[in-house]
């Protein structure tokens, strides 16, 4: 059993489990599944700066910060106690493409050839980590949600706006991954 848990979980196990987060949070306390709001709460707690968007009773939303703290803890447990330490298995086509950019290390969930403290000071690493992170924070708040809040919670409750948002997430990702990222990886 433990041996089985250590392998990567297939989509038909992990997908439904992620879906169950929706009723779990509703039943635990009427909370809508969502992560990106936590970034706003961090701003409201630490840097409100008299910006109206960050003036609210964040103490009522503190559950969301407990939730994301749990995510960090759970990820730690999974990485250190439920890992089989095998390289990530990727499509050979992707491996071939990435090898052209010097990405050959699949031992970690993030490519350590690109994401490291040293690469942070290179143009490539800066764009992937800092610019990418900024776009995630800015874009999710502008869109009013992320993959969990819109794509899973929103579509599960048949929100048209969430379907539009999810289509735009995908279009943005397709454009970046196929047409822009190759140039960034050549830097």
């Amino acid at each position, binding site marked *: 059993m433990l041996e089985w848990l250590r392998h*990567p979980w297939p*989509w038909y196990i992990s*997908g439904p*489990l992620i879906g*169950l987060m929706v009723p779990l949070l509703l*039943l*635990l*306390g*009427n909370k*809508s599944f969502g992560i*990106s709001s936590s*970034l*706003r709460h*961090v701003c409201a707690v630490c840097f409100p700066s008299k*910006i109206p968007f960050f*003036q*609210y009773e964040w103490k009522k939303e*503190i*559950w*969301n910060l407990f939730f994301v703290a*749990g*995510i*960090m803890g*759970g*990820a730690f447990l*999974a*990485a250190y106690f*439920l890992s089989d330490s095998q390289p*990530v298995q*990727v499509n050979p*086509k992707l491996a071939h493409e990435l090898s052209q950019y010097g990405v050959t290390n699949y031992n970690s*969930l*993030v*490519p350590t050839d690109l*994401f490291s403290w040293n690469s942070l000071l290179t143009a490539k690493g800066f764009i992937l980590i800092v610019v*990418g*992170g*900024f776009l*995630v*924070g800015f*874009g999710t*708040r*502008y*869109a*009013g949600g*992320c*993959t969990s*809040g*819109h794509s899973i919670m929103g*579509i*599960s409750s048949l929100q*048209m*706006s*969430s379907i539009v948002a999810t*289509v*735009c997430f995908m279009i*943005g*990702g397709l454009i970046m*991954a196929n047409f*822009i990222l190759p140039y960034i990886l050549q830097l």
Partner: protein
Amino acid sequence: MSEPNTIKPFLKEMNTDFEVRSLDTMCVNKSELQHPSWYNLKYLVAGILFGIILVKSEVVSWFRIQEMFRFQSFHMYGVIGSAIVVGFISIQLIKKFRIKSIHGEPIELHPKPFNKGQVIGGLLFGFGWALTGACPGPLYALVGSGALVIIVALGSAVAGTWVYGLLRDRLPH
């Protein structure tokens, strides 16, 4: 600051404070019940479960995200698709049987009204998702899993949210 409890879709004025604020699920306070703060530990436990699933399904991996956006693997589509199916069925069951929360409150869902932000912000988030290989949940999970440099990406995401808050009155909605 008290928040309106109901959504008024007929509200026509563009970009009113209320309309914009109701775009976020939070700030529409759902519970009037007061609980001691240690009750929040149940969300910590839920988060731990979610964090384990995120890592074991490898949806936090930059490689899996690149495969998804190149249509080279079904994995991510399978994960997100089956999560939506299970979420949808759960919500239908909750509605049909009027299931209440563990504190006896009726379960409420709040509509997210459409606005231009879902298109513009959605595209921008898509760019960021393909670059970092992570959406917000996985950013937290990656830090927990030991990829410590992702703390910088997470800090940058907080900065992005902050800049959005600063500029939001000047952005089209």
